[in-house]
Protein backbone atom coordinates (compact mmCIF):
# COMPACT_ATOMS: atom_id res chain seq x y z
CA UNK A 1 0.00 0.00 0.00
CA UNK A 2 1.87 2.99 -1.23
CA UNK A 3 0.98 6.10 0.72
CA UNK A 4 2.15 9.66 0.61
CA UNK A 5 2.41 11.17 4.08
CA UNK A 6 3.11 14.76 4.97
CA UNK A 7 3.91 15.18 8.65
CA UNK A 8 3.98 18.71 10.12
CA UNK A 9 5.44 19.97 6.86
CA UNK A 10 6.68 23.56 6.89
CA UNK A 11 8.57 25.95 4.64
CA UNK A 12 10.23 29.20 5.66
CA UNK A 13 12.46 31.12 3.32
CA UNK A 14 14.20 34.47 3.16
CA UNK A 15 12.45 36.92 0.88
CA UNK A 16 15.07 39.40 -0.38
CA UNK A 17 12.35 41.86 -1.51
CA UNK A 18 10.60 41.92 1.84
CA UNK A 19 13.97 41.70 3.58
CA UNK A 20 12.55 39.18 6.03
CA UNK A 21 11.83 35.52 6.55
CA UNK A 22 8.48 34.44 5.18
CA UNK A 23 6.61 31.30 6.15
CA UNK A 24 4.80 29.93 3.09
CA UNK A 25 3.74 26.64 4.69
CA UNK A 26 3.14 26.46 8.43
CA UNK A 27 2.21 22.98 9.56
CA UNK A 28 0.65 20.65 7.05
CA UNK A 29 -0.14 17.01 7.74
CA UNK A 30 -1.86 14.96 5.07
CA UNK A 31 -2.11 11.30 4.04
CA UNK A 32 -2.87 10.20 0.51
CA UNK A 33 -3.84 6.55 0.07
CA UNK A 34 -2.84 4.45 -2.91
CA UNK A 35 -5.19 5.00 -5.84
CA UNK A 36 -6.72 8.08 -4.24
CA UNK A 37 -7.32 11.33 -6.09
CA UNK A 38 -6.84 14.28 -3.74
CA UNK A 39 -7.36 17.90 -4.79
CA UNK A 40 -5.72 20.69 -2.84
CA UNK A 41 -7.56 23.94 -3.38
CA UNK A 42 -6.87 27.42 -2.10
CA UNK A 43 -6.37 31.04 -3.14
CA UNK A 44 -3.07 32.17 -4.65
CA UNK A 45 -0.43 32.58 -1.98
CA UNK A 46 -1.90 29.86 0.23
CA UNK A 47 1.24 27.74 -0.19
CA UNK A 48 -0.22 24.97 -2.37
CA UNK A 49 2.45 25.14 -5.08
CA UNK A 50 5.17 25.33 -2.44
CA UNK A 51 3.85 22.09 -0.94
CA UNK A 52 3.89 20.40 -4.33
CA UNK A 53 7.43 21.61 -5.05
CA UNK A 54 8.59 20.22 -1.71
CA UNK A 55 6.98 16.83 -2.37
CA UNK A 56 8.50 16.80 -5.87
CA UNK A 57 11.87 17.57 -4.26
CA UNK A 58 12.46 20.73 -6.29
CA UNK A 59 12.84 22.77 -3.10
CA UNK A 60 13.89 21.55 0.36
CA UNK A 61 11.40 21.67 3.22
CA UNK A 62 12.22 23.58 6.41
CA UNK A 63 10.51 21.32 8.88
CA UNK A 64 8.49 18.14 9.17
CA UNK A 65 8.65 15.06 6.99
CA UNK A 66 7.59 13.85 3.57
CA UNK A 67 7.21 10.08 3.50
CA UNK A 68 6.52 7.94 0.48
CA UNK A 69 5.69 4.38 1.50
CA UNK A 70 7.30 5.16 4.86
CA UNK A 71 10.56 6.35 3.32
CA UNK A 72 11.58 10.03 3.59
CA UNK A 73 12.01 11.73 0.23
CA UNK A 74 14.95 13.95 -0.58
CA UNK A 75 15.36 15.63 -3.94
CA UNK A 76 13.42 14.80 -7.11
CA UNK A 77 12.83 11.19 -8.07
CA UNK A 78 10.95 9.19 -10.70
CA UNK A 79 8.55 7.70 -8.12
CA UNK A 80 6.98 11.17 -7.92
CA UNK A 81 5.77 12.18 -11.38
CA UNK A 82 5.04 15.86 -12.00
CA UNK A 83 2.67 17.57 -14.45
CA UNK A 84 3.56 21.25 -14.83
CA UNK A 85 1.34 24.24 -15.46
CA UNK A 86 3.70 25.30 -18.25
CA UNK A 87 3.67 21.73 -19.72
CA UNK A 88 7.51 21.60 -19.63
CA UNK A 89 7.77 19.33 -22.66
CA UNK A 90 11.20 19.01 -24.26
CA UNK A 91 10.94 21.07 -27.49
CA UNK A 92 13.75 19.06 -29.13
CA UNK A 93 12.05 15.71 -28.65
CA UNK A 94 9.11 14.31 -30.56
CA UNK A 95 5.91 13.56 -28.65
CA UNK A 96 6.86 9.87 -28.65
CA UNK A 97 10.32 10.58 -27.22
CA UNK A 98 8.89 12.97 -24.63
CA UNK A 99 6.56 10.25 -23.35
CA UNK A 100 9.32 7.63 -23.57
CA UNK A 101 11.77 9.82 -21.62
CA UNK A 102 11.03 8.34 -18.19
CA UNK A 103 11.41 4.72 -19.38
CA UNK A 104 14.59 5.76 -21.22
CA UNK A 105 16.00 7.07 -17.93
CA UNK A 106 15.20 3.68 -16.38
CA UNK A 107 17.23 2.00 -19.11
CA UNK A 108 14.27 0.48 -20.98
CA UNK A 109 15.40 -0.49 -24.53
CA UNK A 110 14.19 1.66 -27.43
CA UNK A 111 11.61 -0.77 -28.86
CA UNK A 112 10.06 -1.43 -25.47
CA UNK A 113 9.87 2.21 -24.44
CA UNK A 114 8.33 3.13 -27.79
CA UNK A 115 5.69 0.49 -27.15
CA UNK A 116 5.02 1.92 -23.67
CA UNK A 117 4.87 5.47 -25.06
CA UNK A 118 2.46 4.45 -27.84
CA UNK A 119 0.26 2.70 -25.31
CA UNK A 120 -0.01 5.86 -23.20
CA UNK A 121 -0.46 8.11 -26.24
CA UNK A 122 -3.38 5.91 -27.30
CA UNK A 123 -4.84 6.31 -23.81
CA UNK A 124 -4.85 10.09 -24.33
CA UNK A 125 -6.09 9.88 -27.93
CA UNK A 126 -2.77 11.17 -29.24
CA UNK A 127 -1.57 8.29 -31.40
CA UNK A 128 -1.62 10.47 -34.51
CA UNK A 129 0.75 13.02 -32.94
CA UNK A 130 3.55 10.61 -31.99
CA UNK A 131 6.06 11.99 -34.45
CA UNK A 132 5.19 15.66 -34.01
CA UNK A 133 7.26 18.15 -32.05
CA UNK A 134 5.57 19.90 -29.08
CA UNK A 135 5.57 23.33 -30.76
CA UNK A 136 3.37 21.86 -33.51
CA UNK A 137 0.60 21.00 -31.01
CA UNK A 138 -2.12 23.10 -29.37
CA UNK A 139 -1.87 23.86 -25.64
CA UNK A 140 -4.50 21.24 -24.82
CA UNK A 141 -2.65 18.55 -26.76
CA UNK A 142 0.66 19.55 -25.19
CA UNK A 143 -0.76 19.07 -21.73
CA UNK A 144 -2.23 15.68 -22.67
CA UNK A 145 1.34 14.76 -23.57
CA UNK A 146 2.50 16.21 -20.24
CA UNK A 147 0.05 14.01 -18.33
CA UNK A 148 0.88 10.75 -20.11
CA UNK A 149 4.61 11.51 -20.01
CA UNK A 150 4.37 11.55 -16.22
CA UNK A 151 2.12 8.45 -16.17
CA UNK A 152 4.34 6.44 -18.53
CA UNK A 153 6.98 6.43 -15.80
CA UNK A 154 4.48 4.66 -13.51
CA UNK A 155 5.12 6.92 -10.52
CA UNK A 156 3.87 5.97 -7.05
CA UNK A 157 2.23 9.38 -6.90
CA UNK A 158 1.35 11.86 -9.62
CA UNK A 159 1.76 15.53 -8.63
CA UNK A 160 -0.25 17.97 -10.76
CA UNK A 161 0.41 21.68 -10.39
CA UNK A 162 -2.57 23.62 -11.81
CA UNK A 163 -2.03 21.68 -15.03
CA UNK A 164 -5.08 23.04 -16.87
CA UNK A 165 -4.76 26.70 -15.86
CA UNK A 166 -3.03 27.68 -19.10
CA UNK A 167 -5.64 26.33 -21.56
CA UNK A 168 -8.96 27.80 -22.66
CA UNK A 169 -12.17 27.01 -20.74
CA UNK A 170 -13.65 24.51 -23.24
CA UNK A 171 -10.39 22.60 -23.60
CA UNK A 172 -10.05 22.60 -19.82
CA UNK A 173 -13.39 20.82 -19.37
CA UNK A 174 -12.43 18.21 -21.95
CA UNK A 175 -9.07 17.66 -20.27
CA UNK A 176 -10.74 17.30 -16.87
CA UNK A 177 -13.11 14.65 -18.24
CA UNK A 178 -10.23 12.83 -19.90
CA UNK A 179 -8.24 12.92 -16.67
CA UNK A 180 -11.07 11.30 -14.69
CA UNK A 181 -11.36 8.64 -17.40
CA UNK A 182 -7.60 7.97 -17.37
CA UNK A 183 -7.65 7.88 -13.57
CA UNK A 184 -10.42 5.26 -13.60
CA UNK A 185 -8.50 3.25 -16.15
CA UNK A 186 -5.07 3.27 -14.44
CA UNK A 187 -5.90 4.27 -10.86
CA UNK A 188 -2.79 6.35 -10.21
CA UNK A 189 -2.40 8.12 -6.86
CA UNK A 190 -2.89 11.80 -7.60
CA UNK A 191 -2.28 15.02 -5.69
CA UNK A 192 -3.87 17.77 -7.74
CA UNK A 193 -3.23 21.45 -6.98
CA UNK A 194 -5.74 24.04 -8.17
CA UNK A 195 -7.41 27.33 -7.27
CA UNK A 196 -10.56 26.29 -9.18
CA UNK A 197 -13.17 24.90 -6.76
CA UNK A 198 -15.30 23.29 -9.49
CA UNK A 199 -12.25 21.55 -10.92
CA UNK A 200 -11.16 20.32 -7.49
CA UNK A 201 -14.58 18.77 -6.74
CA UNK A 202 -15.10 17.41 -10.25
CA UNK A 203 -11.85 15.43 -10.24
CA UNK A 204 -11.27 14.26 -6.69
CA UNK A 205 -12.25 11.68 -4.11
CA UNK A 206 -11.29 14.20 -1.49
CA UNK A 207 -10.81 17.97 -1.53
CA UNK A 208 -8.38 19.58 0.91
CA UNK A 209 -8.81 23.31 1.50
CA UNK A 210 -5.62 25.22 2.17
CA UNK A 211 -5.30 28.72 3.56
CA UNK A 212 -2.30 30.76 4.60
CA UNK A 213 -0.05 27.72 4.71
CA UNK A 214 -2.41 25.58 6.81
CA UNK A 215 -5.03 22.94 6.04
CA UNK A 216 -8.40 24.47 6.86
CA UNK A 217 -10.65 21.49 6.30
CA UNK A 218 -11.38 18.68 3.91
CA UNK A 219 -14.42 17.36 2.10
CA UNK A 220 -15.04 13.83 0.79
CA UNK A 221 -16.46 13.62 -2.73
CA UNK A 222 -18.50 10.48 -3.44
CA UNK A 223 -19.89 11.48 -6.81
CA UNK A 224 -20.33 8.51 -9.13
CA UNK A 225 -17.94 7.95 -12.00
CA UNK A 226 -17.44 8.34 -14.88
CA UNK A 227 -17.89 12.06 -14.33
CA UNK A 228 -18.89 14.27 -17.23
CA UNK A 229 -19.67 17.95 -17.09
CA UNK A 230 -23.00 17.70 -18.95
CA UNK A 231 -24.39 15.60 -16.08
CA UNK A 232 -22.61 17.15 -13.10
CA UNK A 233 -23.37 20.73 -14.01
CA UNK A 234 -27.00 20.17 -12.89
CA UNK A 235 -26.24 17.58 -10.23
CA UNK A 236 -27.47 18.63 -6.76
CA UNK A 237 -24.74 16.82 -4.86
CA UNK A 238 -22.01 18.37 -7.06
CA UNK A 239 -23.54 21.82 -6.56
CA UNK A 240 -23.80 21.30 -2.81
CA UNK A 241 -20.18 20.12 -2.49
CA UNK A 242 -18.90 22.93 -4.68
CA UNK A 243 -20.80 25.51 -2.65
CA UNK A 244 -19.46 24.03 0.56
CA UNK A 245 -15.83 24.12 -0.64
CA UNK A 246 -16.27 27.57 -2.14
CA UNK A 247 -17.55 28.87 1.16
CA UNK A 248 -14.45 27.51 2.94
CA UNK A 249 -12.12 29.00 0.35
CA UNK A 250 -13.79 32.39 0.50
CA UNK A 251 -13.81 32.42 4.28
CA UNK A 252 -10.12 31.57 4.21
Amino acid sequence: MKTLSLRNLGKTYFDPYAGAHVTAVHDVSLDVQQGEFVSVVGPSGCGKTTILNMIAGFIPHSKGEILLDGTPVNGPGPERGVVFQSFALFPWKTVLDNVGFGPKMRGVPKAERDRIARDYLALAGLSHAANRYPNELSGGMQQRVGVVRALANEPAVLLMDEPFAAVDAQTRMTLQEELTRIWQDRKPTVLFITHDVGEAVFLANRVVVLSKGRILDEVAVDLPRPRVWDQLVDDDEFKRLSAQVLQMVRAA
Partner: protein
Amino acid sequence: MRGAASLAGSAMFVAPLLALLAIWAIVVPLFEVNPRVFPSIGAVGGAALDSIRDGTLIAHIGASLLRVGLGTLIGIATAVPLGVAMGVSPTVAAFLTPLFRFFSVLAGIAWIPIATLWFGYGFGAIVFVIFNAVFFVVTYNTLLGVQTIPHTLRNAAWSLGAGRWAMLTEVLLPGALPNIVTGIRTGLGFAWRGLIAAEMIATNVGLGYMLFVARDFYRTEVIVFGMIVIGVLWLLIDRLILVRIERATIERWGMVRRA
Protein backbone atom coordinates in the same frame (compact mmCIF):
# COMPACT_ATOMS: atom_id res chain seq x y z
CA MET B 1 4.84 27.33 -52.70
CA ARG B 2 7.99 26.94 -50.65
CA GLY B 3 10.09 26.40 -53.77
CA ALA B 4 8.72 29.56 -55.36
CA ALA B 5 9.34 31.52 -52.16
CA SER B 6 12.94 30.35 -51.90
CA LEU B 7 13.45 31.12 -55.61
CA ALA B 8 12.18 34.65 -55.03
CA GLY B 9 14.45 34.90 -51.99
CA SER B 10 17.47 33.84 -54.05
CA ALA B 11 16.57 36.39 -56.74
CA MET B 12 16.37 39.14 -54.13
CA PHE B 13 19.79 38.08 -52.88
CA VAL B 14 21.44 37.89 -56.31
CA ALA B 15 19.91 41.01 -57.86
CA PRO B 16 22.06 43.62 -56.03
CA LEU B 17 25.19 41.59 -56.77
CA LEU B 18 24.30 41.55 -60.47
CA ALA B 19 23.70 45.32 -60.33
CA LEU B 20 27.18 45.77 -58.86
CA LEU B 21 28.64 43.63 -61.66
CA ALA B 22 26.82 45.72 -64.24
CA ILE B 23 28.20 48.98 -62.81
CA TRP B 24 31.66 47.44 -62.82
CA ALA B 25 31.28 46.31 -66.45
CA ILE B 26 30.26 49.84 -67.51
CA VAL B 27 32.41 52.10 -65.35
CA VAL B 28 35.84 50.53 -65.77
CA PRO B 29 35.98 50.68 -69.65
CA LEU B 30 34.03 53.98 -69.77
CA PHE B 31 36.52 55.89 -67.67
CA GLU B 32 39.49 53.82 -68.83
CA VAL B 33 40.40 53.04 -65.23
CA ASN B 34 44.08 52.24 -64.75
CA PRO B 35 44.36 48.44 -64.13
CA ARG B 36 46.74 49.25 -61.27
CA VAL B 37 43.83 50.97 -59.54
CA PHE B 38 41.00 48.57 -60.44
CA PRO B 39 40.84 45.68 -62.91
CA SER B 40 38.28 45.00 -65.64
CA ILE B 41 35.91 42.04 -65.35
CA GLY B 42 37.76 40.33 -68.17
CA ALA B 43 41.11 40.62 -66.39
CA VAL B 44 39.62 39.14 -63.21
CA GLY B 45 38.11 36.32 -65.25
CA GLY B 46 41.53 35.70 -66.76
CA ALA B 47 43.15 35.65 -63.32
CA ALA B 48 40.49 33.18 -62.20
CA LEU B 49 41.14 30.84 -65.12
CA ASP B 50 44.93 31.06 -64.66
CA SER B 51 44.76 30.24 -60.97
CA ILE B 52 42.37 27.35 -61.58
CA ARG B 53 44.50 25.98 -64.42
CA ASP B 54 47.83 26.08 -62.59
CA GLY B 55 46.30 24.68 -59.38
CA THR B 56 47.28 27.60 -57.14
CA LEU B 57 43.64 28.48 -56.37
CA ILE B 58 42.91 25.02 -55.02
CA ALA B 59 46.14 25.09 -53.01
CA HIS B 60 45.23 28.44 -51.43
CA ILE B 61 41.63 27.47 -50.71
CA GLY B 62 42.68 24.09 -49.34
CA ALA B 63 45.25 25.64 -46.99
CA SER B 64 42.77 28.27 -45.76
CA LEU B 65 39.89 25.82 -45.23
CA LEU B 66 42.14 23.36 -43.39
CA ARG B 67 43.21 26.10 -40.96
CA VAL B 68 39.66 27.35 -40.44
CA GLY B 69 38.32 23.81 -40.05
CA LEU B 70 40.92 22.74 -37.53
CA GLY B 71 40.82 25.96 -35.49
CA THR B 72 37.03 25.89 -35.42
CA LEU B 73 36.85 22.23 -34.39
CA ILE B 74 39.30 22.76 -31.52
CA GLY B 75 37.41 25.91 -30.56
CA ILE B 76 34.00 24.20 -30.44
CA ALA B 77 35.34 21.08 -28.74
CA THR B 78 36.76 23.12 -25.86
CA ALA B 79 34.19 25.94 -25.72
CA VAL B 80 30.99 23.88 -25.45
CA PRO B 81 32.02 21.79 -22.41
CA LEU B 82 33.39 24.90 -20.69
CA GLY B 83 30.25 26.89 -21.48
CA VAL B 84 28.03 24.14 -20.10
CA ALA B 85 30.15 23.82 -16.97
CA MET B 86 29.88 27.55 -16.44
CA GLY B 87 26.15 27.43 -17.13
CA VAL B 88 25.39 24.90 -14.40
CA SER B 89 27.37 26.76 -11.76
CA PRO B 90 26.01 30.28 -11.16
CA THR B 91 29.04 31.27 -9.10
CA VAL B 92 31.55 30.26 -11.76
CA ALA B 93 29.40 31.89 -14.44
CA ALA B 94 29.11 35.17 -12.55
CA PHE B 95 32.87 35.24 -12.02
CA LEU B 96 33.90 34.41 -15.59
CA THR B 97 31.22 36.24 -17.57
CA PRO B 98 32.95 39.66 -17.62
CA LEU B 99 36.18 37.99 -18.79
CA PHE B 100 34.42 36.23 -21.63
CA ARG B 101 32.59 39.36 -22.72
CA PHE B 102 35.90 41.18 -22.80
CA PHE B 103 37.69 38.48 -24.78
CA SER B 104 34.73 38.03 -27.15
CA VAL B 105 35.31 41.57 -28.36
CA LEU B 106 39.04 41.05 -28.58
CA ALA B 107 38.83 37.65 -30.27
CA GLY B 108 40.63 37.02 -33.54
CA ILE B 109 42.75 39.60 -35.32
CA ALA B 110 44.07 41.36 -32.21
CA TRP B 111 45.84 38.15 -31.24
CA ILE B 112 47.88 37.83 -34.44
CA PRO B 113 51.01 39.66 -33.21
CA ILE B 114 51.29 37.69 -29.99
CA ALA B 115 50.33 34.42 -31.73
CA THR B 116 53.29 34.79 -34.08
CA LEU B 117 55.56 35.31 -31.07
CA TRP B 118 54.23 32.15 -29.42
CA PHE B 119 53.94 29.87 -32.43
CA GLY B 120 56.24 31.45 -35.02
CA TYR B 121 55.11 32.36 -38.54
CA GLY B 122 52.95 29.64 -40.02
CA PHE B 123 50.28 27.05 -39.41
CA GLY B 124 50.27 27.11 -35.60
CA ALA B 125 49.84 30.86 -35.25
CA ILE B 126 46.99 30.97 -37.77
CA VAL B 127 45.11 28.03 -36.25
CA PHE B 128 45.51 29.69 -32.85
CA VAL B 129 43.94 32.90 -34.13
CA ILE B 130 40.99 30.94 -35.59
CA PHE B 131 40.59 28.90 -32.40
CA ASN B 132 40.66 32.09 -30.39
CA ALA B 133 38.02 33.79 -32.52
CA VAL B 134 35.68 30.81 -32.12
CA PHE B 135 36.44 29.84 -28.53
CA PHE B 136 35.38 32.93 -26.59
CA VAL B 137 32.24 33.61 -28.58
CA VAL B 138 31.06 29.99 -28.49
CA THR B 139 31.80 29.65 -24.77
CA TYR B 140 29.89 32.81 -23.97
CA ASN B 141 26.92 31.81 -26.12
CA THR B 142 26.85 28.26 -24.72
CA LEU B 143 26.77 29.72 -21.22
CA LEU B 144 23.94 32.02 -22.25
CA GLY B 145 22.10 29.07 -23.83
CA VAL B 146 22.33 26.91 -20.72
CA GLN B 147 21.20 29.79 -18.52
CA THR B 148 18.14 30.49 -20.65
CA ILE B 149 16.79 26.91 -20.49
CA PRO B 150 13.56 27.20 -18.46
CA HIS B 151 14.06 25.79 -15.00
CA THR B 152 10.89 23.71 -15.27
CA LEU B 153 12.51 21.69 -18.06
CA ARG B 154 15.34 20.70 -15.74
CA ASN B 155 12.81 19.91 -13.02
CA ALA B 156 10.81 17.82 -15.49
CA ALA B 157 13.89 15.81 -16.48
CA TRP B 158 14.85 15.35 -12.84
CA SER B 159 11.42 14.14 -11.81
CA LEU B 160 11.45 11.69 -14.73
CA GLY B 161 14.62 10.13 -13.33
CA ALA B 162 17.39 11.89 -15.25
CA GLY B 163 20.84 11.76 -13.67
CA ARG B 164 23.70 14.18 -14.26
CA TRP B 165 24.82 12.69 -17.56
CA ALA B 166 21.30 12.49 -18.97
CA MET B 167 20.67 16.06 -17.83
CA LEU B 168 23.70 17.12 -19.87
CA THR B 169 23.01 15.16 -23.04
CA GLU B 170 19.20 15.23 -23.03
CA VAL B 171 18.47 18.72 -21.68
CA LEU B 172 21.40 21.12 -21.38
CA LEU B 173 23.10 20.51 -24.74
CA PRO B 174 19.96 20.44 -26.92
CA GLY B 175 18.48 23.29 -24.90
CA ALA B 176 21.57 25.43 -25.45
CA LEU B 177 21.90 24.45 -29.12
CA PRO B 178 20.21 27.55 -30.59
CA ASN B 179 22.70 29.76 -28.78
CA ILE B 180 25.60 27.44 -29.58
CA VAL B 181 24.82 27.66 -33.30
CA THR B 182 24.52 31.45 -33.06
CA GLY B 183 27.90 31.48 -31.32
CA ILE B 184 29.46 29.31 -34.02
CA ARG B 185 28.08 31.56 -36.77
CA THR B 186 29.41 34.69 -35.08
CA GLY B 187 32.70 33.03 -34.17
CA LEU B 188 33.25 31.66 -37.67
CA GLY B 189 32.62 35.14 -39.04
CA PHE B 190 35.38 36.48 -36.79
CA ALA B 191 37.57 33.50 -37.65
CA TRP B 192 37.21 34.00 -41.40
CA ARG B 193 38.28 37.65 -41.15
CA GLY B 194 41.06 36.70 -38.74
CA LEU B 195 42.23 34.01 -41.12
CA ILE B 196 42.68 36.39 -44.05
CA ALA B 197 44.49 38.90 -41.86
CA ALA B 198 46.75 36.26 -40.33
CA GLU B 199 47.58 34.75 -43.70
CA MET B 200 48.77 38.14 -44.94
CA ILE B 201 51.35 38.20 -42.19
CA ALA B 202 52.18 34.75 -41.08
CA THR B 203 52.41 32.31 -43.99
CA ASN B 204 53.28 31.53 -47.61
CA VAL B 205 50.06 29.91 -48.78
CA GLY B 206 46.34 30.64 -48.38
CA LEU B 207 43.81 33.14 -49.67
CA GLY B 208 45.13 36.01 -47.54
CA TYR B 209 48.65 35.32 -48.78
CA MET B 210 47.37 35.25 -52.37
CA LEU B 211 45.98 38.80 -51.95
CA PHE B 212 49.05 40.08 -50.20
CA VAL B 213 51.57 38.81 -52.77
CA ALA B 214 49.49 40.08 -55.69
CA ARG B 215 49.67 43.55 -54.17
CA ASP B 216 53.47 43.53 -54.48
CA PHE B 217 53.10 43.11 -58.24
CA TYR B 218 50.18 45.52 -58.69
CA ARG B 219 48.05 42.53 -59.77
CA THR B 220 44.70 44.13 -58.91
CA GLU B 221 42.86 41.46 -60.94
CA VAL B 222 44.25 38.75 -58.65
CA ILE B 223 43.42 40.79 -55.54
CA VAL B 224 39.82 41.37 -56.63
CA PHE B 225 39.43 37.75 -57.67
CA GLY B 226 40.74 36.67 -54.25
CA MET B 227 38.30 38.98 -52.51
CA ILE B 228 35.43 37.49 -54.48
CA VAL B 229 36.53 33.95 -53.58
CA ILE B 230 36.75 34.90 -49.89
CA GLY B 231 33.25 36.39 -49.90
CA VAL B 232 31.68 33.55 -51.87
CA LEU B 233 33.32 30.87 -49.73
CA TRP B 234 31.98 32.50 -46.57
CA LEU B 235 28.48 32.70 -48.00
CA LEU B 236 28.66 29.03 -48.97
CA ILE B 237 29.86 27.99 -45.51
CA ASP B 238 27.11 30.03 -43.86
CA ARG B 239 24.25 29.05 -46.21
CA LEU B 240 25.14 25.44 -46.93
CA ILE B 241 26.37 24.36 -43.50
CA LEU B 242 25.35 26.67 -40.66
CA VAL B 243 21.90 27.72 -41.86
CA ARG B 244 21.10 24.09 -42.70
CA ILE B 245 22.00 22.96 -39.19
CA GLU B 246 19.64 25.61 -37.85
CA ARG B 247 16.83 24.51 -40.15
CA ALA B 248 17.20 20.82 -39.36
CA THR B 249 17.18 21.31 -35.61
CA ILE B 250 16.18 24.41 -33.77
CA GLU B 251 13.74 25.85 -36.31
CA ARG B 252 11.96 22.51 -36.43
CA TRP B 253 11.72 22.57 -32.63
CA GLY B 254 10.21 26.05 -32.75
CA MET B 255 13.06 27.44 -30.68
CA VAL B 256 14.36 30.07 -33.05
CA ARG B 257 12.87 33.52 -33.17
CA ARG B 258 14.47 34.79 -36.37
CA ALA B 259 14.87 33.20 -39.81
